[in-house]
């Protein structure tokens, strides 16, 4: 295994997860916390829950975006260094769910930031969330490869 392959593998094996509750009902948040418990243990994939956007690779968002917190969400996304992946957990984050028609709700979080993985469910199951995070780790690796290619083109 050469150095390049090892770097790519590192991106897949070490995704650090940042969780942001975007006016969610806490249903999905409890399920995300359940992923860290001994029963599901997401650290076996190298996923660590971090509280700092500057260290994070994957942004996990639950809940709908409203006019108040769209700036916060955008701000957190902008603080993360590239390559970064966004996972929308639950139907609220994906489309707005039952709150879609509410006057203050913009809809799913893809109205504000680009989303890579959608995890459906109300609330989403821990198995589904871990599945989505694993998929996100693969996308992270792909994004790193694309970053390398883009740099070669720019040279």
């Amino acid at each position: 295994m050469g150095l390049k392959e090892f770097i790519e593998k590192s991106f897949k094996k070490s995704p650090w997860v940042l969780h942001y509750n975007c006016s969610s009902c806490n249903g999905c948040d409890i399920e995300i916390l359940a992923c860290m418990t001994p029963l599901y243990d997401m650290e076996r994939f190298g996923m660590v829950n971090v509280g700092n956007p500057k260290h994070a690779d994957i942004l996990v968002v639950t809940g709908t975006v409203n006019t108040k917190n769209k700036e916060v969400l955008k701000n957190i996304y902008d603080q993360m260094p590239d390559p970064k992946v966004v996972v929308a957990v639950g139907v609220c984050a994906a489309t707005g769910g039952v709150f879609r028609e509410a006057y203050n709700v913009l809809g799913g979080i893809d109205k504000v930031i680009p989303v890579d993985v959608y995890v459906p469910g109300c609330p989403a199951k821990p198995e589904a969330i871990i599945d989505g995070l694993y998929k996100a780790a693969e996308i992270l690796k792909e994004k790193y490869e694309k970053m390398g290619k883009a740099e070669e083109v720019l040279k």
Partner: protein
Amino acid sequence: MMREIIIFVIAIALAPFIGGFLNGIDRKLTAFIQGRYGPPVWQPFYDVIKLLYKQKILVNDFQVFSAYIYLLTAILSIGLFAIKADLLMILFVMSVGLAFYIAGALSTKSPYSQVGAQRELMQMLAYEPMLIFFAIAVYNVTGSFNLGQIMKHGRLLFDLPLMFILLGLVLTIKLKKSPFDLSTSEHAHQELVRGILTDYSGPYLALIHIADWYEMILILAMIAILWSQNLLIGVLIALATFFVDIVIDNITARMTVKWMLAFSWSISILFTIINIAYIYFRR
């Protein structure tokens, strides 16, 4: 001279691998104690390599400088240890690096970073006296600060049993293990976000992780020379201390900065006085 250069290079090349591996075992063992499966043993290397190739985001240029100085002094102190230089000099080189590490965190405006840096300063205040006391006690037994001279005394552990306990305590504070995990809030406690590391990101965080591994190896090496007659036994003693630290990490809760200072100062002064008195009475 040539031989010393070769030993220097080998030591600074091997130390991060051993440090990262020990860190991986630490995470695996912690997972085992908590009833989880845990990450692979090579996980710290994946983390560091990933961080090294992330995008560089900077708050100011001084951070870059301080991260590099921290790594450089950590490497230098391991190298100096390997060529059996002066014990006091090694300790001072180590503290210079830490001063830069803290100054780099203080140079940003983030309140989390500031609080973390101040706590790290307090941690430094807690363990630096212990290390100096250790050097003094070693001098009392061997009559020298030079590691080559010190290592001629085969079993320092019998002369300095209490200083060995103090070194174990230094290791716990240095690794930011649980009763003392004040400055970075390890283990996903996020009330300080990431404390002193908040504004170090991407490659610079990786540099700091590598420097931390070097410093961990340095403290373990200091424990190992307590049995320099057969260094293999010394290494085993150091590893046993490391495992006891992991267990302590898992069975204790975090304490406050004030408690840490009071505890570490009282225990270090008490143990040092008793141990030095013991050395005098044995003569």
